[in-house]
């Protein structure tokens, strides 16, 4: 088997970085550090997309990389930081998460994702196909993060990280979705973030905190 071309090795490197950052986010309790990790993951995603574009001469992927850079490295973290400052939850620390157990579940999820991705990546003609498992794993890890978090902002960062994983899946399996769809997705993410911003203030105004334990009153009535 011939050695992988240089750019493919670079892509694998970024993919590994992406997964590593997903794990780091899973275990990070501080809100501020979470935002930084999210921005770093966005950067890894943008760089890997750019390398795929360079290696395979898919010029439309440069646009996609630029869009990711703009949205996920600059705009969204900036919006999140601004929100955190305005809501004054800078020092928020998530309690009550059992990090070792979460890590173990995370590892199981990664194994599961690689198994699920195997039949698909064997069919793929792209050089990046081996990274599909990683993409799926980062989606799963972000999902796990959403489940384990009790505060609003970390849950939203989990949601956005999931979007990162999906974007990476799109690049690694198919060299990116058609441009119009990518633009639409980016627009949805941005609008969603703005709406959430408004929403956070509503929650805060009502409950004086962003702890989601206040949001567990609606249950099936049982007397």
């Amino acid at each position, binding site marked *: 088997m011939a050695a992988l071309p240089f750019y493919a090795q670079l892509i694998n490197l970024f993919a590994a970085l992406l997964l590593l950052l997903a794990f780091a986010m899973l275990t990070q309790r501080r809100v501020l550090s979470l935002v930084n990790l999210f921005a770093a993951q966005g950067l890894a995603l943008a760089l890997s997309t750019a390398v795929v574009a360079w290696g395979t001469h898919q010029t439309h992927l440069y646009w996609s990389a630029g869009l990711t850079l703009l949205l996920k490295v600059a705009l969204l973290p900036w919006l999140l930081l601004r929100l955190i400052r305005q809501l004054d939850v800078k020092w928020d620390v998530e309690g009550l998460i059992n990090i070792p157990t979460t890590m173990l579940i995370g590892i199981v999820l990664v194994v599961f994702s690689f198994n*699920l991705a195997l*039949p*698909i990546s064997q*069919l*793929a*003609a792209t050089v990046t196909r081996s990274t599909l498992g990683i993409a799926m794993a980062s*989606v799963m890890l972000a*999902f796990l993060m*959403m489940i384990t978090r009790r505060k*609003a902002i970390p*849950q939203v960062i989990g*949601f956005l990280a*999931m*979007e990162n994983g*999906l974007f990476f*899946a*799109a690049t690694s*399996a*198919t*060299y990116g*979705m*058609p*441009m*119009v*769809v990518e633009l*639409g*997705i980016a*627009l*949805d993410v941005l*609008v*969603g973030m703005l*709406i*959430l911003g*408004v*929403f956070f203030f*509503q*929650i805060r*105004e*009502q*409950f004086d905190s962003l702890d*989601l334990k*206040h*949001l*567990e*009153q*609606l249950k*099936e*009535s*049982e007397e």
Partner: protein
Amino acid sequence: MSEILAVLALPLAGGLLLGLIGERAAAPLVNVATSLLTLLAAAALTVRVIVDGPQLALEQQFFVDSFNVFLVALTAFVGFTTSLFSRPYMRIEHEHGRLTRARLKLYHSMYQLFSFTMLLALLTNNMGILWVAMEAATLTTVLLVSLYRTPASLEAAWKYFILCGVGIAQALFGTILLYFAAEKLLGAGGGALLWTELNGVKGELEPTVLSIAFVFLLVGYGTKVGLVPLHNWLPDAHAEGPTPVSAVLSGLLLNVALYAVVRCKVLVEGSLHTTFARELMMGFGLLSVVVAALLLSRQKDIKRLFAYSSIEHMGIITFAFGIGGAVANFAALLHMTVHSLTKSAIFFAVGHATQKTGTQLMDDIRGLVVTSPAIGWGLILGTLAILGMPPFGVFASEFLLLTTAMRQQPWATPILLAALGLAFAAVFSKVQPMVFGETTAKRLPIRPAMIPVFVHLALVLLLGLWIPPYLAAWYRQAAQLIG
């Protein structure tokens, strides 16, 4: 083609305009006018389809065929009647001090944008844009669900956002896999996500990828349909938002999400040549019917009651599409139409009833027929219609479904019948005293705007007795297309 553009551009422009001027006193009228114009455009589009047949427009990015044409017309129609209902309803909410002018502006603007996203989801030929539109439909309604800013409504909206957001992310993954399979046959670029193109080559799409994709797509869009066990957001969102929002969520959004599932099912089945997709849909559908029927009897809040009834009916429709074949698909399409009309009519009546009695708790609402005969009769007739009493249209579609199920999936018939019976008992025993029970309250001085309710119920009655030939032809063609 110009009709398609008009159907999409009108609500979009209306939404933006209302975002600017929504605080003026004329905003509700502008809202109604926009919905009316959208309805007229949809009518023109329908006439065009009747005259010229299915249409493809704008480099195949938009299309109308027999499956989506009646849904577009239905969406525009219910959108219009709901805007009629919401004018007096929201005015009273404002007078009671539950809503400020700024929030009314938000409401009107988002209402139109929500209509836009649903029409876009129905008309687009691009599976990627379909996803974008479905996600946008969630985003536009999140702030509508939390419009009252009460703790309960905030919680409902948060649940709605997170659950549907996660769900729809699964659907995006499914869409990526679909594109992945299609790109090999159709080449990279926009063409590989066009439904019409995909439908042409569905026999050659890679079956392994498509079966994994379908699981993600069904779970993803199924969350928005409210299929059990992904239904948790639905009762809360319906109960805590303003009633016009409940009416369009239940009557329209669930249909649009189900439409997305069925479009995917057509492709997957063409590729797999097995009953995998059907079995999944039958399973989810039947589970939803049974669980919803069991939960109905435990409800205390009237809007939650009818939200669970929506889950039940979505389950029935999903199950019918799962059986497949000409008759079951026909029944499912008819049921989509009549459920949408009946459920929105019920929510209009419920909205008036809760507004006049000041509570959503069923135990505190009594004797509507004395205090306000129009509301009482509207509610009881709507309830009978949704429970499948003849001669309403819901009876016709459920009867068709049950007879087909008896022949093709006999094991499911007793389960379905038991669930329908249970639902009947639960809902009727709760609604009957609300309408005919004894009350000490006096007759209310205000006359409710009940015209939309009775127009909807008349249409449902009509569909139970006689289906217009064009509509029947569309149902038949669509049933054949769905397979």
